[in-house]
């Protein structure tokens, strides 16, 4: 497998962690209470930690002197390969939790397979991340239940978020050409195989939370090809501000 294919495959996972970590870090200091604020920051820290491990490996694979920061901060928007789901804004706590829940359920299933990757570094990163992401999934599932089966207002709010974000869940399972090459070479995970378990997990939690899965058959895609929503440009303006304004400096 060519390094370039492997790098693109890793971007498909690592960029999700970076962008979701960035979104969560916007909330630090603004949570509904201190305990939740601390927990969400923890998830941001875990995701950014995973991002660093992946990017450091990419830097090593590319062998062109690029650092983790060049990769995180100096690509153009079309080069980020995260799914549309993770870049969606923090409209309210119901959105934050639903976005997290939809991603965590996928992320955990992915990592459980990825730890068997024949690429030792990728497998090691996945193995370490499983512990963290199991906690994320517990946190977001518990909150889905609290919001869904809490008050009338919270039910309505979380259902609204589910209705809006459901259309981004299908893209999680799409495979790019690089993904397929990674699967053929035993490096990557065939995400088609995760779908059934994912749907089952969502159904179980939603049933307990009294949340209805939207009936729409129309889904959105594009992030994996670097065609993002309009939110992405603003997220990147913040993320890249310092590196763009003061190029080639050490911080």
């Amino acid at each position, binding site marked *: 497998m060519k390094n370039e294919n492997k790098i693109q495959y890793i971007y498909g996972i690592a960029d999700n962690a970076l962008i979701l970590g960035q979104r969560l870090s916007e909330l*630090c*200091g603004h949570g509904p209470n201190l305990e939740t604020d*601390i927990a969400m920051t923890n998830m941001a820290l875990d995701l950014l930690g995973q991002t660093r491990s992946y990017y450091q490996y990419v830097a090593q694979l590319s062998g062109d002197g690029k650092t983790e920061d060049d990769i995180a901060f100096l690509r153009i928007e079309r080069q980020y390969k995260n799914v549309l789901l993770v870049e969606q804004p923090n409209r309210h706590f119901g959105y934050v939790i639903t976005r997290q829940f939809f991603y965590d359920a996928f992320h955990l299933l992915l990592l459980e397979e990825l730890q068997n990757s024949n690429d030792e570094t990728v497998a090691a990163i996945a193995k370490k991340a499983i512990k963290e992401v199991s906690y994320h999934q517990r946190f977001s599932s518990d909150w889905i239940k*609290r919001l869904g089966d*809490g008050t009338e207002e*919270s039910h309505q709010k979380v259902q609204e978020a589910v209705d809006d974000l459901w259309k981004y869940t299908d893209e999680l399972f799409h495979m790019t050409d690089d993904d397929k090459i990674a699967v053929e070479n035993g490096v990557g995970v065939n995400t088609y195989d995760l779908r059934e378990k994912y749907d089952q997990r969502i159904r179980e939690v939603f049933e307990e939370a009294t949340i209805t899965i939207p009936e729409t058959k129309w889904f959105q895609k594009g992030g994996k090809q670097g065609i993002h929503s309009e939110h992405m440009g603003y997220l990147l303006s913040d*993320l890249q501000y*310092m590196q763009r304004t*003061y190029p080639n400096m050490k911080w």
Partner: protein
Amino acid sequence: MSEKEIKNHGAEHSLSLEEIFEQRIARDEKIEPKDWMPEKYRKTHIRQISQHAHSEIVGMLPEGNWITRAPSLRRKVALLAKVQDEAGHGLYLYSACETLGISREELYEQLHTGKAKYSSIFNYPTVTWADMGAIGWLVDGAAIINQVPLCSTSYGPYARAMIRVCKEESFHQRQGYEIMITLANGSPEQKEMAQDALNRWWWPSLMMFGPTDAESVHTAQSMKWKLKRKTNDELRQQFIDQTVPQAELIGLTIPDPDLKWNEEKKGYDFGKIDWDEFWQVVKGHGPCNKERMTARVNAWEKGEWVRNAAMAYAKKQEDKKLKKAI
């Protein structure tokens, strides 16, 4: 006993309780939540501990302002972890305060209505990345000097919370200074950014120690209860003497033309602090007082439906358990 006698007896009784209490403090014994304490002691501690907790929580905002724009992944993670530590400090301190018989809701209410104060330093804006360095180095540096003596203060829950807080604060201070070192050794723009941050944060940091001893109203009582071990002016002097060489070491200049080593007192003489500015900010008219409070009130109000949901859900679960048990 006549009513008068009962009253006298009561007065004598409470006097002797107070005497016992003062003796315990003099012997350096810890006062615990269930122990008898004078009402004034309780009130003073609620005021100081909550003010401290509020400062941690409001203090998350100026630094939180730079998390999404941190210049490297390493710095982003470190800053995020630092701001999270402050949330943790807020949590221990609110818990310590709650042991004095006040709820977290009441404490927030006092903050949001302006009844309770928080450290004025957080009413200044963070305008460049270098402010993350300056805050860690100077603001956390000043906070440590203020707080270390509190690790042996008389109220047990506060003293124990402070031991944890101080450990983490000294880590933050080193982290902040390390940001300044990197900038000071960097490009001309970076060095200028560092100097500019020092210029803006120096005087407000000196104000963190509070008014001069002559003006300070709480000092005498607080010394007796070991809420304070040194006066405001002594602590301020200690901070200046410790910080000036750190600035020199990295080639930054303290923005005070009157700063001069005084061999006789073995400390620095320094220029006049602008106390008008201090009082302006304390009274709510600093550059960001309104923004900070709006952010806190917003987070609290927008979180109300979430907290209500959690309570309602917990109650439903409890009811389900009960039903099963029956």
